[in-house]
């Protein structure tokens, strides 16, 4: 049995809206082991976003426990959570969230600027390596508006990799991309997962995207509806290769 990266025990999250209490998560338990590629699916209102915020240490559970790499986040302060995010989580967002008018390399370096232990030289070196890992080694000096959507998302993935996190947390990371580029991103994710052994938690609402992962957790009304191992995981690279070459764009 490999190491548990995530441990979630009977997790609940409630919001108080005026006089009403909204139960976004009503008791969820699951573990994620190192090296897994998990997709979390669910329609809107299923508690997907709330769960993502908690997994990303941006929010804390109301009741229940969440251990990230053995650390109980409930006991941490705002600043300690920020440190934890810096060291253990790599975020990939739907809208890339790159800094405008800033080169790809500087965007990738960003998380390391908030890490005291990394020197300027090491920061640069690691950023270059991360860009190589996402096959953008020749795009160091390009600013986001000089890059395509897929390339921007790859810069964002490099930024998520640069601090060597225990988990990459992707929030609808293919949501703004066309299907071909989505497959490219998924192929990259699969490669990071299989070759580098990165643990990936991918939030999406597209079943097509979920089929590339090794495990799918279905949320519904704040409960886990289904938690299934994906027996016939598809290879995004193969799908990409079989995609007909079109010239419709």
């Amino acid at each position, binding site marked *: 049995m490999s190491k548990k990266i995530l441990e979630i025990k009977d997790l609940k999250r409630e919001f108080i809206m005026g006089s009403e209490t909204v139960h976004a998560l009503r008791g969820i338990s699951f573990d994620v082991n190192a090296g897994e590629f998990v997709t979390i699916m669910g329609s809107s209102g299923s508690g997907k976003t709330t769960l993502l915020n908690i997994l990303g240490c941006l929010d804390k559970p109301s009741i229940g426990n969440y251990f990230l790499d053995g650390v109980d986040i409930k006991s941490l302060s705002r600043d300690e959570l*920020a440190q934890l*995010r*810096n060291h253990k989580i790599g975020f990939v967002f739907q809208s890339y969230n790159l800094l405008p008018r800033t080169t790809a390399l500087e965007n990738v370096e960003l*998380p390391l600027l*908030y890490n*005291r232990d990394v020197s300027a030289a090491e920061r640069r070196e690691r950023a270059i390596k991360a860009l190589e890992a996402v096959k953008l080694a020749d795009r160091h000096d390009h600013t986001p508006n000089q890059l395509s959507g897929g390339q921007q998302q790859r810069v964002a993935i490099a930024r998520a990799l640069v*601090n060597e996190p225990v988990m990459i947390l992707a929030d609808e990371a293919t949501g703004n991309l066309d299907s071909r580029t989505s497959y490219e991103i998924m192929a990259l994710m699969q490669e990071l997962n299989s070759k580098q052994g990165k643990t990936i938690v991918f939030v999406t609402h597209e079943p097509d995207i979920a089929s590339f992962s090794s495990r799918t957790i279905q949320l519904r009304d704040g409960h886990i509806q289904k938690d299934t191992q994906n027996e016939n995981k598809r290879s995004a690279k193969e799908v990409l290769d079989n995609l007909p070459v079109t010239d419709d764009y």
Partner: protein
Amino acid sequence: MSLINLIRIALKALQRNKLRAFLTMLGIIIGVGSVIAMVAIGQGSKQSIHDQLSNMGTNMITVQPASNLNGGVRIAGSSFQTLTIKDITALTAGAQDITEISPAVSSRGQAINGALNWPTTMSGVSPEYLDIRKLTLKDGIAFTQNDVKVSAKVCLIGQTVIDNLFPNGDNPIGKVIRFGNIPFQIIGILAPKGFNAFGQDQDDILIAPYTTVQKRILATIYYSNIYASAANEAVTDQAVKEMTSVLRDSHRLRPSDDNDFTVRTQQELIATLSSTSGLLTVLLTVVAGISLVIGGIGIMNIMYVSVTERTKEIGLRMSIGARGKDILMQFLMEAVLISITGGVIGVLIGFLSTQIVTYTLGWPTIISESSVVLSFVVCAVTGIFFGYYPAQKASRLDPIEALRYE
């Protein structure tokens, strides 16, 4: 987060919006530039006023015999005769802060050149008198200590006397005129000084060695005044104290006795000098304060807009590990960098405009280091003060909401 990283982050953020950063700086640039230029012009005119006042002899000290009671009747000081050569000797030896000293006697009389005559005053003084009173010679030479020793019959002549005794434009140097039936050879011409504040014509004068006037005209051993100059205005009061105690000793006054002399300074002139500079300083400080506050409000305004506009960026930075205080420090650093850069540019512009004023308008200017340092410090403080509130607002954002902000 280390300071270097902090500066790097803030600099990059500013670089992304250069025009805005520059426009924000403009308030500070104009503020600091105008303060430097105005202080320089103010200091320049203050210096030139100071020079003019010094020309009138602000460090001059006068000793006169004091008024006194004589059988219940007050007698004017000038009727007393108490100042002698003994006092000059004692003052020369005993008063440290005095650089020059001259006795003075004077006599009114008729100056005669052939058929022409003119009523005037002859002052008997020592050669130092010219320095003490800031008198200069237009032509010829001054008399010397030797002339004093031998009571030489030589004199210096003022422009008004020349106009009346030599109306044809003859060169008076070397000519002999008579004053009180004594013939005097004219050896120098005084540069004209015009009328003084009380309407007295300062050029209506003859100046001769005091021994000559004492012995040949007045037949007295007493002086009517003693003139002295302090080393500078700052030690004038000190010099007055020294002179007073030396003269009391010299006159053998008991502690219970009043002074039989008065020592006067050019207090009015000194007061004018300091009040002019005081007013100027207050005025400039107020202007500096107002312009820097306006610059600061500009910074605050832009920083607020910037925080709102960059909400998503703040959310991203927080999600990848920036703590609240990292965000606070970043925005504070941006504000400080704007204000300090603006300060530096402002100082340069201040220098430049000062030079332009000097060369085009010919106004005297002095750039004082204190105004540069002060406006620079005020800039940094302005940046911190007006940058803090927006920065705090940024640091308190909730990362979840900030990320979702459109």
